[in-house]
């Protein structure tokens, strides 16, 4: 179950929970596409609780990030732990995706909390 929290009219936070894998990657893709369709330029994926990022989860991000960038925004990976970042690193994705800490996202998008 992907939870969402809207921050104004341009930014939305999506939270996959403990895993972003084959069981919910399609939900994440749908949630991102829906948000993009509603005009949200900035999509923040709250990864603070994420413990497993599978290839399907990676696909849900890579397959949709270009649309947000075409809209003048981005998909921001927020609060990912070392293990999740490690998976992104081994795929050489860290230079291609926007990865930020919770504090950085809080400051940039004026988030009080991501729940």
């Amino acid at each position, binding site marked *: 179950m992907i939870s969402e929290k809207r921050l104004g009219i341009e930014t939305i936070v999506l939270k996959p929970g403990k895993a972003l*894998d*084959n*069981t919910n990657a399609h939900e994440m*893709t749908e949630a991102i596409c829906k948000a993009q369709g509603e005009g949200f330029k900035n999509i923040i994926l709250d990864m603070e609780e994420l413990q*497993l990022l*599978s*290839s*399907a989860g*990676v*696909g*849900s991000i*890579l*397959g*949709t*990030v*270009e*649309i947000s960038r075409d809209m003048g925004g981005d998909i921001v990976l927020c609060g990912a732990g*070392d*293990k999740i970042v*490690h*998976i992104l*690193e*081994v*795929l*050489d*994705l860290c*230079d*291609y995706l926007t990865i930020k800490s919770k504090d950085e996202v809080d400051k940039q998008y004026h988030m009080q909390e991501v729940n």
Partner: protein
Amino acid sequence: MSVRARRTVTLLVPLDIYGDTLESFYEELRGRLKEQPEEIRLDCSLLEHATSAHINTLWHAQGKCEDAGVSAKLISVTYGLERVLAVLDLRDLFVVERDEVEARAGKYRPVRGEEAPDALSLAVAPTVEGISQGMQRLHDYLLGLNHGEMFAFDLETVFYEVTTNIRLHGDLPEGEYISFTAAASNGSVHLCFEDQGAYFDPTSRRIDFDPQRAINQRQTRGFGLAIIRKLVDGISYERQNDSVNILNLEKKINRNGGQF
């Protein structure tokens, strides 16, 4: 003077080695050893999904035979047991009856280490729940090896990707499981997956993962092999009898990540 003929005795090694069954096995072994046979043959035909506990049982049984001055031999060694013995480099600790199983496993070179590492052997149900349970068992096993959380995480991720690929695309026959073994030896952790699903040779595909191209093309699939290849140091595939996929993966200890 009459000469009493010494004979060969065959004992079936139980699959259930917990509780009364194991004690009954040892009790029967003790009784047979009192008869001073020439040889005790330990029938391993039930041990397709052998674990380290089964190896211990065989080791203890063989030790009791040696203590009694009776030779012991393993017979009807299953492929699963043979593989665990080979991966653990323990084949030369046992006298194994040469048969088609041993010949099939000839690709393994037995190099006995001074310390025998433990192994994990699982029958993984090709379901979300089965894979999740398998990951938890593997997690516990890998943490027990003390090579660090990240090392364990890498192999758990590999386990997830391989088993999920089999679950989704393997077209496994109804009721079939994925046979999985993990073992540490010679500075590496080895993972072996066996399934009776559709032919799939992951080593035959060239992995040319380009992040920017994937983003530009809005690619949503096809990253699993890239993750697997980048998280392990060795990979080999064999299709056996045109019915079984055997995928062997190796990750060197003290090396996180890596591409080959």
